[in-house]
């Protein structure tokens, strides 16, 4: 299948996303700043709709130089999408789970052309 336009780049919020079903293939397209990322909307845990969940900064433990903890704080650099079925989180830039990087969303090629965001929809076997 050829590249498919999912929308205008300028229509995406930052951070923002659009999840589309293209002839039965569900793809989540995300914007972070000027960058776009796309993944299959299938969670590696139990196939939940991972791209349709909440978008939040990654929570981190604020460990001080003396190794005490100042509690949890949200990351200023990492934004996650969270599967609404059970809460697995995925770094939007890498698609990987923050605790176990081998658990990841399946990427889909995405590009911006003439202001449009296009994804390459893989042929379904």
């Amino acid at each position, binding site marked *: 299948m050829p590249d*498919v336009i999912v929308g205008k780049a300028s229509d995406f919020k930052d951070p923002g996303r659009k999840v589309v*079903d293209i002839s039965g293939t569900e793809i989540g397209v995300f914007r972070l700043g000027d960058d776009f990322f796309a993944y299959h909307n299938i969670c590696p845990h*139990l*196939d939940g*709709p991972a791209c349709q969940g909440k978008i*939040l900064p990654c929570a981190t433990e604020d460990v001080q130089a003396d190794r005490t903890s100042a509690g949890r704080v949200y990351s200023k650099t990492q934004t996650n999408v969270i599967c*609404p079925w059970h809460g697995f989180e995925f770094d939007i830039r890498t698609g990987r789970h923050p605790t176990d990087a081998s658990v990841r969303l399946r990427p889909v090629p995405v590009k911006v052309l*003439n202001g449009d965001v296009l994804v390459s929809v893989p042929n379904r076997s």
Partner: protein
Amino acid sequence: MPLETPPRAESFRELPEITVASDTRDYLAHAAKQALKYDDYELIVDIDAHLQEGGFWGEIIGLLENDVLKQTAEEMMRGRGGMPLINMQPGMSFQSLAGRVPHQSGPTEPTDDPAKAGHRFVQIVRRTIDTMGLDYQVIFPTSMLHLGMNPMEDIEIYLARAYCRWLTEIILPQDKRIIALAYLPFNTPSECEKLVKQYGDNPQIVGFTVCAVRHKPVHANQYMRLYSMIEETGKPLVFHAGPHWDDPSFTQLNRFISMHALSFVHYNLIHMTNWVINALPERFPKLKTVWVESGLAWIPFLMQRLDHEVMMRQSEAPGLKRLPSDYMREMYYSSQPMERQNLALLEATFKAMNAETQLLYSSDWPHWDFDPPSSVTTLPFLSDQAKRNILGLNAARVFNLPVKRLRPRAAEVLAREAERHR
């Protein structure tokens, strides 16, 4: 090369963010696709799903048979809403992971006119069971799971009765695929006996549940008549685990995850230990017991631990004619939350507990750590027959259900959904 016209897909639909207001059918749309894989299975039974009774609390309160409690609860509801008489701290309910897992906080989805489409809860359950491809779903309460710790015993008694009435008079008559257990106010054995008498013959009350979060020794003599009565009904006695952060040991735990991981196992560990060491399976050989929502990893742990100690301290468990693990292997367990991170350990657990005949699929829907039926069908080490047993045939034996398909075909459900979105 610049594109002049947008490439056309055969079909293109935007999918919304899943929120607490999402329709259950959209939330579980992927489960509907998974259901194609087990569409030819004889029977799918979900033996543990939950009513989020907060949305229907006014109806349950309305059925309280004690005037003082009823007036008290109604007055409290008028003032602040919430769930009067329930001993849970609302400010400590972290289940939804701060909105990351929104289904835990619902349901808030719109439903159709109840006069035509049935009670709102029935409509929502129908959406769930059709989408997941279930023939039957066994309903448990949520907030009432804590009532065993309520210091006012009369509250547990009257809420148990009101809940059973709400189920049997309003909900269950509307759909035979929805079944439930009578809540036993276990702090008061004589009241439990009354409920067993009252609901023993009701075909949609398929068993009796003890909400396991409580400090009551299950081997106490005061319960023996109750167990005899339940044994006679042929229905199971079901211990449903739960969370309880106020338990003194757990107050050391600083995160919900820690309390949740331990608490759901803790109470069933204690009740099972008392049940086995006091040899209740020898006293009630025909009583079926089911242990619900503690996951599975605790089962081989306790089997090994008790077997090890019983061999050395027989004089403290003289009623046993076999090893604790032999008795435990004859009991039944619900599957959720299935610890699937290490499949080799999970496979060993399945072997240790005779999962092929003793394990009962449960979803725990709509709670945050729910398992769809695919949690069982995708296990690589199970035979097709084992999957059929775990997903429904074992439950048919335990809950005395006919092996007869009631659910629509998965393809029909998908076609209906496609139509709904057209």
